[in-house]
């Protein structure tokens, strides 16, 4: 027994958890490389410090601070991935991916198919976003629906630090391009630390809370809100099941349908703008398969149809809320 075995933390925040996932992946496979603006330690270990310590440990050749050149960053990740590497590109904020959409949509997503399977693109794009922190219109958008609509991409996000660690490792090991969404507002939130080697399979949802009356389906930052609402509604005698998709695309259709077949009611929740959001796809799937047994139409909760505003009052008006979730649940209950 090694007397110097460190005491393992019992709690961990998102930053620590994702850092641990990257660290483990880099230790396990020399082909895992990181690229992004300011990600090496000399530049601060990333603007949110998610990559702090990794360039010291693995060297500046594998943890590469880049110019502010999103097309070149994602393109370099595509090329390195085709050549057998497993690059993780950090695009600081999700809105900045708009600058690199050609590389994501026309290349990363399609090269496997267009080459007839001769090449594939095992890259991960890590990117942070989310409203509620006063970043305004160009640093806060939840754009997961864009990527979910492009065949060939996987879209992943975690609702708690342990899953974040488990999912980032699975994304890196996956042979397809993955968009890994991190929530700016949630970075400092702590949760139970993952066990060593913990991974979460892609495409598999989790039952975050079991219930009988209504299923709330969501992902990422929506899950803590849904769980809080579920807890509060317990007092009103409403039993809410919460499904955490974890992988947004392709999502775990079976888990959604099994749960809603049991409860007969469903509410879909996400921070992204409600119109044309991922919730529309999930709602449609439920209606297509379970229309005859549904006790109420599926309800959708999302943010307002507007750019993310700056003023706190407007930002609050934009964002979905716990009240929206509970109101939607009550509508499915006919109350």
């Amino acid at each position, binding site marked *: 027994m090694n007397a110097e075995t460190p005491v393992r933390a019992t709690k961990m925040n998102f930053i620590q958890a994702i850092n641990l996932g990257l660290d483990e992946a880099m230790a396990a496979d020399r082909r895992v490389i990181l690229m992004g603006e300011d990600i090496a330690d000399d530049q601060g270990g990333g603007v949110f410090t998610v990559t702090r310590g990794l360039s010291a440990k693995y060297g500046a050749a594998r943890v590469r601070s880049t110019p502010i050149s999103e097309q070149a960053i994602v393109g370099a990740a595509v090329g390195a991935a*085709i050549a057998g590497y497993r690059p993780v590109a950090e695009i600081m904020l999700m809105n900045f991916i708009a600058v690199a959409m050609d590389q994501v949509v026309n290349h990363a997503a399609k090269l496997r198919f267009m080459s007839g399977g001769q090449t594939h693109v095992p890259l991960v794009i890590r990117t942070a976003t989310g409203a509620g922190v006063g970043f305004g219109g160009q640093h806060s958008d939840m754009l997961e629906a864009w990527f979910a609509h492009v065949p060939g991409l996987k879209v992943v996000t975690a609702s708690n630090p342990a899953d974040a660690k488990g999912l980032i490792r699975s994304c890196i090991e996956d042979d397809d391009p993955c968009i890994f969404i991190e929530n700016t507002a949630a970075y400092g939130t702590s949760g139970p630390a993952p066990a060593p080697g913990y991974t979460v399979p892609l495409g598999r949802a989790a039952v975050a809370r079991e219930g009988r009356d209504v299923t709330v389906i969501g992902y990422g930052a929506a899950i803590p809100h849904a769980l809080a609402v579920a807890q509060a509604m317990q007092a009103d005698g409403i039993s809410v099941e919460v499904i955490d998709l974890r992988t947004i695309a392709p999502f775990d259709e079976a888990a959604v349908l099994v749960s809603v077949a049991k409860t007969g009611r469903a509410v879909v929740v996400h921070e992204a703008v409600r119109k044309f959001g991922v919730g529309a796809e999930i709602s449609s799937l439920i209606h297509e398969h379970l229309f005859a047994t549904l006790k109420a139409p599926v309800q959708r909760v999302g943010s307002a149809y507007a750019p993310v505003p700056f003023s706190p009052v407007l930002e609050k008006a934009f964002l979905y809320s716990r009240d929206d979730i509970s109101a939607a649940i009550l509508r499915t209950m006919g109350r």
Partner: protein
Amino acid sequence: MTERLIEEPGRDVLLDIYRRANLIYQADERFRAMILGGQLQIIYYSPRGQEIVSAATMAALAPDDYLVTTYRGVHDQLAKGIPPRDLWAEFAGKAAGTCKGKGGPMHITHPETGVMVTTGIVGSGLPIANGLALASQLEGDGKVTVVCFGDAATNIGAFHESLNMAQIWRLPVIFLCQNNLYGEHTPQAMSTGCAEIIDRAIGYGIRGVQVNGNDAFAMYAAAREAVARARAGEGPTFIEAKTFRFFGHLLGDDSHYIPAEEMAAAKAADPIPAYRRALLDRQIPEAELDAIDAGIAATVEEAATSALAAGYPEPSEIRVDVLAGEIAA
């Protein structure tokens, strides 16, 4: 005994370039005939006039060096060594094609010969070429990546981001601008602020070389030097190879926007017969060149015939290669 400043390539290299250039030339003739004859229904970007650029550059590469090219890429792909039969079948949308009929003429991939990406998006190959070169640099495998693009691609953002990144990282990559003087229908002077495209290298501190791409000797020397530097870890080169295209942006374009005298002068300097004359001047027997031409003709005939006879992919292939696992029906 006098020493020559630039040593000419040996006989084997000269014939190698001849073989590659004339494979392109004959294949292009056949592609155009098949399209105009209704046997192939494709959008076709003829490389006629640009053969020597590719032939001389690819002759300077090793078979496993990487190539990234663009929709006007059939000359690059054939010169890099893709078997004509496989390429033809892909152009025809057949299951036996390089990409199982899923890519088509604008998206040719053939890793066996180092052809890693063909993009239909102007300028998009450059960032990806950097990534291939980065992998080689990290791997220490000595491979060089060549990325081909046209003059108009030097006006898109990806070009600028890529030259900059390649230079700061000293990547083993060669940016080969095949400057045919027109971007779609717009002449260079109308679309490009600097008089010479090569001047753009200065802004990124990258080594720049301007060359007559239709001169096989100059083109080969420029490519060889750039390849040697890249392999030696001395970083990237931006080559501007001046050339011309005889059949417009795409087949069916009547080139009305090109002054007649400019087109006539370009055709008078047609690089294919010019190179043949250069070889004859160097005492390479005409019969030897004729024999090469005949061999190519047989290869092209076989490729074209087999592509037409080959079968289409199964419709169920739509579910394969989207992701690693097959998509459920």
